[in-house]
């Protein structure tokens, strides 16, 4: 039976990061993945990541995946695809199904990086064709290039539900609504605002009463829930849809660890059953480590760092590096990890109501319920200022670890500072040249360039635009407000699609002056 220094189960972002780290110290590493392609869920993430430069902020998920694969290949990491690990035993032996055989391997160390699976929610009609997981929608859109449906209801307002709703809209689907049984939107306000301005309404707290159809979904009825989880009479709403997407959370896929005898704990904050681990990711079984979502639901950026920590820990446990080096390297990684775990959505803050930002600004309640800022609210934040000529207007109002906007501006117009969760502030003294780099760099698409002095009676607004049909210079369409409401006529005066913007196109529209604080999106006129 083949004996390997390190066996990693799962070639997603955390597994690959662990393999790269371990290989750098000279371990013979084999990664097994049950899928046809490596990368886990990373290649379905077509949006720009948050965080800071060290976390690969403003780079699209799938590009990060490509970089990881390239690095792994260059180091000679062995990745065996289409290989399902079907058993993990206490003495660190695994059984793997590869093609038509069951093979045995022994690892001196094992890292489990199997990720998570989607949660389910039942309702009348949930087994009908047309009810799919949000992950399924992403897979179909971004891996296979096919629309999951035409008219879609999204259940779940966490980041997955919000991001996938936007991806559906990008490809031309009609998302009729995003609903959630929780009283507040669970994901980032900027993700919600991105879809609210395209006209997608939010219904909270609502749940699905019934999915209709005999052979497949043809419609859905939703209803408001009260504090005892009963439907409020008379609150029912009906939508004609062909698809219902479920985005109700993830649970760690930790069954292998349970089988191996690791001590487990059931923690709702981590998403379910996870192994008890020390700070290096080692479980109660010596030599078995974990990293990524299987150790607690977070996101890809933290998964990659955890992977490196586990890879280094495995290398140290086999004597490939000294205790000093391990402590030093791990400390650096832990710093990077903790800077991600700050702010309003930090894992430690889950479940708590936050009413003020770190700076003392009120957190917009309107944003949390309806998915968009009201105009009055927008005015109080440090990113929203009045100035002569073109200047950035940053509607970023929650503390999340993210700062690409600061780096994007060559003229120092935007300041976040050392603490990357701070709200971005626009410096009125600096000269904005309207280059649009900040608009394109913002992963939340929360930055607009506004020029109230464009023309007598008119203002210009530059918006980020990533939907399917790019507007053309010279065309006249409709200016939409923060929740997609029709406000005025808008003439497209410029469209910029430079390579450096990485597919975030900049569309500049001309609107009546009094609309400059209201219009935040553009829609083509019906043909």
């Amino acid at each position, binding site marked *: 039976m083949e004996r390997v220094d390190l066996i990693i189960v799962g070639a997603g972002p955390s597994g690959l990061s662990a393999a790269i780290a371990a290989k750098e110290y000279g371990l013979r590493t084999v990664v097994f993945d049950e899928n046809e392609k490596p990368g886990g869920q990373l290649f379905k993430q077509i949006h720009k990541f948050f965080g800071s430069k060290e976390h690969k902020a403003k780079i699209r998920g799938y590009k990060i995946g490509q970089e990881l694969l390239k690095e792994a290949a260059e180091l000679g990491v062995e990745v065996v695809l289409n290989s399902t690990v079907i058993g993990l035993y206490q003495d660190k032996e695994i059984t793997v199904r590869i093609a038509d055989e069951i093979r045995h391997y022994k690892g001196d160390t094992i890292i489990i990086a199997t990720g998570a699976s*989607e949660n389910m929610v039942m309702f009348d009609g949930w087994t009908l*064709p047309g009810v799919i997981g949000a992950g399924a929608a992403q897979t179909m859109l971004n891996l296979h290039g096919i629309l999951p449906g035409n008219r879609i209801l999204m259940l779940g307002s966490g980041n997955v539900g919000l991001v996938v709703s936007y991806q559906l809209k*990008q490809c031309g689907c009609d998302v009729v609504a995003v609903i959630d049984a929780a009283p507040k939107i669970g994901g980032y306000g900027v993700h919600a605002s991105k879809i609210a301005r395209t006209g997608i309404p939010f219904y909270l707290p609502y749940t699905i009463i019934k999915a209709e159809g005999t052979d497949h979904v043809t419609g859905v009825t939703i209803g408001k829930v009260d504090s005892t989880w009963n439907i409020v009479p008379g609150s029912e709403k009906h939508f004609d849809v062909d698809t219902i997407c479920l985005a109700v959370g993830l649970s760690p896929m930790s069954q292998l660890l349970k089988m191996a005898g690791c001590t487990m704990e059931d923690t709702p904050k981590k998403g379910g059953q996870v192994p008890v681990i020390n700070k290096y990711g080692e479980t109660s079984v010596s030599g078995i480590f974990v990293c990524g979502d299987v150790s607690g639901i977070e996101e890809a950026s933290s998964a990659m760092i955890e992977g490196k920590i586990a890879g280094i820990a495995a290398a140290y446990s086999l004597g490939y590096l000294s205790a000093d080096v391990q402590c030093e390297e791990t400390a650096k990684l832990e710093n990077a990890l903790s800077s991600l775990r700050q702010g309003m959505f930090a894992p430690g803050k889950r479940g708590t109501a936050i009413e003020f930002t770190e700076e003392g600004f009120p957190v917009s309640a309107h944003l949390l319920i309806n998915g968009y800022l009201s105009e009055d609210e927008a005015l109080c934040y440090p990113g929203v200022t009045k100035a002569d000529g073109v200047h950035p207007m940053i509607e970023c109002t929650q503390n999340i670890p993210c700062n690409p906007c600061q780096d994007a501006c060559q003229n120092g117009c935007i300041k976040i500072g050392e603490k990357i969760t701070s709200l971005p502030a626009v410096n009125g003294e600096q000269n904005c040249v309207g280059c649009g780099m900040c608009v394109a760099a913002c992963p939340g698409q929360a930055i607009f360039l506004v020029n109230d002095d464009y023309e007598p009676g008119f203002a210009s607004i530059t918006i980020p635009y990533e939907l399917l049909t790019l507007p053309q210079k010279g065309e006249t369409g409709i200016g939409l407000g923060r929740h997609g409401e029709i406000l005025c006529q808008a003439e497209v005066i410029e469209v910029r699609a430079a390579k450096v913007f990485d597919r975030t196109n900049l569309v500049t529209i001309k609107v009546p002056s009094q609309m400059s604080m209201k219009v935040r999106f553009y829609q083509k006129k019906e043909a």
Partner: protein
Amino acid sequence: MNRIKEHPILGEIKKGRLVTFHYNGQSMEGYEGEPIAVALKASGVLIHRYTKKLHKPRGIFCAIGRCTDCVMVVDGIPNVRTCVTPLKEGMVILTQYGVSAEPFEV
């Protein structure tokens, strides 16, 4: 037609060559190497099987090979997960009833 011609972020999504396959006796086209379920969806097929006990229709649910709702009889073999099985030229795909291609007795 629900195939995406130009993805706003990914551009053109690479596909293999166009091949013919068979679904319940009908000839259909799909791209070699893409999941069978995607080729079927592109042709408007929504129902993959009918359940054993209650004879209810099922189709794609998770799309990543975990839930097993999309299984069909492929080249005579039942319980094939069509969302993760690559399409090959000439494949014979049949709606699964329970665990076989035999429709239920009325």
